[in-house]
């Protein structure tokens, strides 16, 4: 079995509204799989179900062959699920370095050491230094997150997610709100990380999607209307109608 | 507003040293919060009582906020910094439970004008600890005796669901002897409509209830509003129908029966003098048993001070123990545990000319009774 993520028949309704309607898709090891669709297509709902923040009404989610449909979020993370948020979600009062340190520390599931000194844990700080050295954020290590620029926050989120060495990384609109240059940096960072883990990418920026994705799934009104590689999707008339076409007009 | 000015004005006058050789008396009492009026009564009654003896004294009054911690803090300062050897004034037994041991350990004397927790009345009694008011249980035993004497055999007894409430019902039942249906109310409950329905349903010959302060006011108002006042007689022990409660309740109290150790129509010189002095000093404030107990405390302390002065604690202790004063309640003596041995009276609440309730003494129902804890006290 090669699938890192396998979703089968996932359905979630809110009252009368069906947000995800019998969605099935797979993500292979080392692959970047993009999930696109117009606003309100149910992409975020799907991501939240994979993370465990929402429970599906029907269907299954397997991570690396294990059924995680009903697991609490923390256990999914322990099995190798990482994520970034659409609206950046960081520890605003802490520095870049401290944020990363917590992520590294959390990789072992955290701990209840109440008498050690966080400041003295060399193995954690060494790893943080290593990660930062290899990234554009290096010079900003001591800055409090609240003072970072938007693009830098997005970068930090990605670094934190990657530092946990996930099997599968869920990227919820990593380009949202980024300028052209910042987008390019993000694309480079994602390309660099490709191969370390599989990624499920939710994104509106089509240039980024076609630059990164090995495969693309199109979601409209909670339903998968097409799936395939970049060229197939570009050529698919249904997709053009439902989604890409709209964008042209 | 005027009332306020007079009472604070008086406080200031008292707190400034009156005389060079005046004995300092520490008064720790509850002046803030809903129960603040009790502390006010005690402070003012004590002042009048002491003045009546002509003793040289200086009161140091401080609020305990009904909090044991604050009480001990104040006691500590009075005892150890200001060198006060004689304390009094506490309203609530939770405060006295903390302050009294502190006082006794410091070798000082405590004379209680009100609170008398049973924990200090029995085996843990102490030569330097006096209670001028009453032991809790006796209050309600008197009511039980009264209900029995009036010929009732079935009763509903109501009290809050805490220790003093349970003691009240136990005390009432002990002397009453008939069938008692017990109903406990919530500790901070103020609407008793449910209990009124239960009383009507149980249809007893008499109702006994113990709810001091605001709860008592609410209970009596609602008793009348439920139409029970005319149909089921009620017997009360004195904390549930003090002058302040009656004033707030108004005509709703007329027709009730109460038991007390003192009432303002007592025919003795001390009581008459006190009533007159109070009316002159506080014309708009009712004179309650709290103030009367404090007045008696003042008479006791003042008398002892006149005899032996405030320097020699041992002599003062002996003078207090002798209880050689003309109490406003007529007969008064200390039992083995230095709690009162006194008479209890049946009173009825009648309407005065204006239709407002007034307490009228009817007969003596218990004579020279002490309390059950005295037997455990080995002094």
């Amino acid at each position, binding site marked *: 079995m090669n699938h890192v993520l396998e979703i089968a028949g996932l359905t979630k309704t809110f009252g009368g509204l069906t947000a995800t309607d019998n969605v099935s898709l797979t993500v292979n090891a080392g692959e970047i799989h993009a999930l696109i669709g117009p606003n309100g297509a149910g992409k975020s709902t799907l991501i939240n179900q994979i993370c465990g923040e929402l429970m599906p009404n029907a269907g299954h989610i397997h991570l690396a062959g294990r059924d995680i449909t009903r697991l609490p979020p923390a256990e999914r993370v322990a099995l190798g699920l990482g994520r970034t948020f659409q609206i950046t979600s960081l520890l605003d009062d802490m520095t870049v370095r401290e944020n990363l340190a917590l992520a590294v520390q959390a990789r072992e599931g955290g701990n209840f050491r109440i008498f050690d000194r966080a400041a003295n844990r060399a193995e954690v700080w060494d790893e943080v230094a290593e990660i930062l050295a290899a990234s554009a954020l290096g010079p900003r290590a001591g800055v409090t997150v609240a003072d970072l620029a938007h693009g830098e926050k997005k970068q930090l989120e990605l670094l934190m997610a990657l530092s946990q060495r996930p099997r599968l990384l869920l990227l919820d609109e990593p380009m949202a709100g980024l300028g052209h240059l910042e987008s390019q940096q993000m694309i480079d960072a994602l390309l660099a990380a490709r191969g370390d883990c599989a990624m499920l990418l939710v994104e509106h920026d089509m240039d980024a999607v076609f630059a990164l994705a090995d495969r693309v799934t199109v979601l409209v009104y909670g339903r998968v209307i097409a799936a395939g590689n970049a060229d197939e999707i570009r050529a698919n008339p249904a997709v053009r109608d439902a989604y890409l076409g709209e964008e042209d007009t | 507003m005027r009332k306020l000015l007079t009472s604070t004005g008086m406080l200031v006058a008292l707190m400034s040293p009156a005389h060079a050789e005046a004995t300092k008396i520490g008064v720790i009492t509850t002046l803030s919060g809903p129960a603040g009026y009790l502390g006010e009564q005690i402070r003012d009654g004590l002042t009048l009582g002491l003045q009546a003896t002509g003793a040289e004294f200086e009161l140091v009054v401080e609020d305990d906020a009904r909090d044991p911690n604050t009480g001990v803090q104040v006691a500590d300062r009075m005892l150890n910094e200001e060198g006060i050897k004689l304390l009094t004034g506490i309203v609530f037994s939770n405060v006295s439970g903390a302050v009294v041991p502190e006082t006794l350990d410091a070798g000082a004397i405590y004379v209680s004008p009100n609170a008398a927790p049973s924990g200090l009345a029995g085996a843990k009694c102490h030569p330097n600890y006096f209670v001028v008011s009453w032991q809790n249980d006796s209050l309600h035993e008197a009511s039980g005796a009264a209900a029995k004497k009036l010929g009732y055999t079935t009763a509903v007894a109501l009290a809050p*669901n805490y220790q003093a409430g349970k003691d009240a019902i136990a005390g009432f039942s002990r002397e009453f002897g008939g069938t008692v249906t017990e109903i406990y*109310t919530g500790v901070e*409950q103020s609407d008793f*409509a*449910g*209990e009124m329905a239960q009383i009507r349903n149980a249809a007893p010959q008499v109702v006994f209830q113990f709810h001091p302060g605001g709860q*008592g006011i609410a209970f009596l108002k609602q008793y009348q*509003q439920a*139409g029970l006042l005319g149909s089921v007689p009620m017997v009360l022990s004195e904390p549930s129908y003090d002058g302040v409660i009656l004033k*707030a309740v108004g005509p709703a109290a007329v027709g009730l029966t109460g038991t007390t150790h003192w009432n303002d129509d007592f025919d003795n010189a001390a009581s008459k003098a006190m009533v007159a002095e109070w009316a002159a000093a506080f014309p708009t404030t009712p004179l309650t048993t709290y103030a009367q107990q404090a007045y008696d405390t003042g008479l006791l302390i003042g008398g002892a001070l006149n005899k032996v002065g405030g320097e020699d604690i041992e002599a003062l202790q002996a003078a207090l123990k002798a209880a050689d004063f003309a109490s406003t309640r007529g007969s008064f003596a200390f039992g083995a545990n230095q709690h009162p041995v006194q008479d209890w009276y049946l009173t009825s609440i009648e309407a005065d000319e204006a239709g407002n309730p007034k307490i009228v003494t009817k007969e003596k129902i218990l004579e020279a009774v002490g309390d059950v804890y005295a037997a455990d006290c080995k002094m």
Partner: protein
Amino acid sequence: MILLIEQLLNGLQYGVTLFLLAAGLTLIFGIMGVINLAHGALYMVGAFAGAWVSIQTGSFWAGLLAGLVASAIAGVLVELGVMRRLYARDHLDQVLATFALILIFNQSTVLIFGRQPLFTSLPEMFSGSVEIVPGLPYPSYRLFVIAVGLAVAFGLYLLINKTRIGMLVRAGASNRQMVRALGVNIGGLYTAVFGLGALLAGLAGVMASPIMSVQVGMGDEIILATFVVVVIGGVGSVKGAFVAGIVLGMCDTMLRAFLPGLLQQVMPGSEAQALGVGISSMGIYLMMAIILLVRPRGLFAAQG
């Protein structure tokens, strides 16, 4: 049976009193996001002002008017003077500030009215009782309280569902930013809501004054039960406050009335009494704990 009907009425009457207090509190809570511990103090202001004026004038109705006016003015002053600066702060600062307000209100009341509880009597026309079913005379004043409570509930329903102000209030309770985005005079809306909440608390205070004891600190006792109602009902939901208020009032009364009796079937009398009342005192808290465990945001949470 008669006992049951009477207890149900008692529960209803307690319930509407809780609702009067909780309605204002839940709106203030939901719209401004402020934890107002001093809401009980406004109840006390209403009761004292009402009682004092009715003593002076001899008319309950004059007292009622005075109580409403006094509490509304107090509410508006508190909003303008203190609350306004706290909206942007976190809950902790609000707790501290409103606790300080309780101290100030209580002690000012002592300074103005003294420590003695005030006496108020029933209004003449409601001083008797009505025989609802044969053999059950019920105080007509309590029926009056129930009627007023239900009328206010209906009025609030109309206000909130049928008027523009109500629309803003509803919008504000479910999404605070949205009202701001609508370009409404937020300051005015906040002051109005706070004043309305204070007015309702004052109304509850005046209505309670002939039944209860009008004394300093009377608001501190009822404020806890009010918060329980607000939280069970769902913060910001007037409907929730109504349902929770009635349910809580009923449960509280029923537990007190019948639990000791039920327990007596299985244990000796006085122990059953004590335990029964013990459980009923904890009853509303127990209920809140259970409801919150099942529905962490209360029954009718307005905020998503």
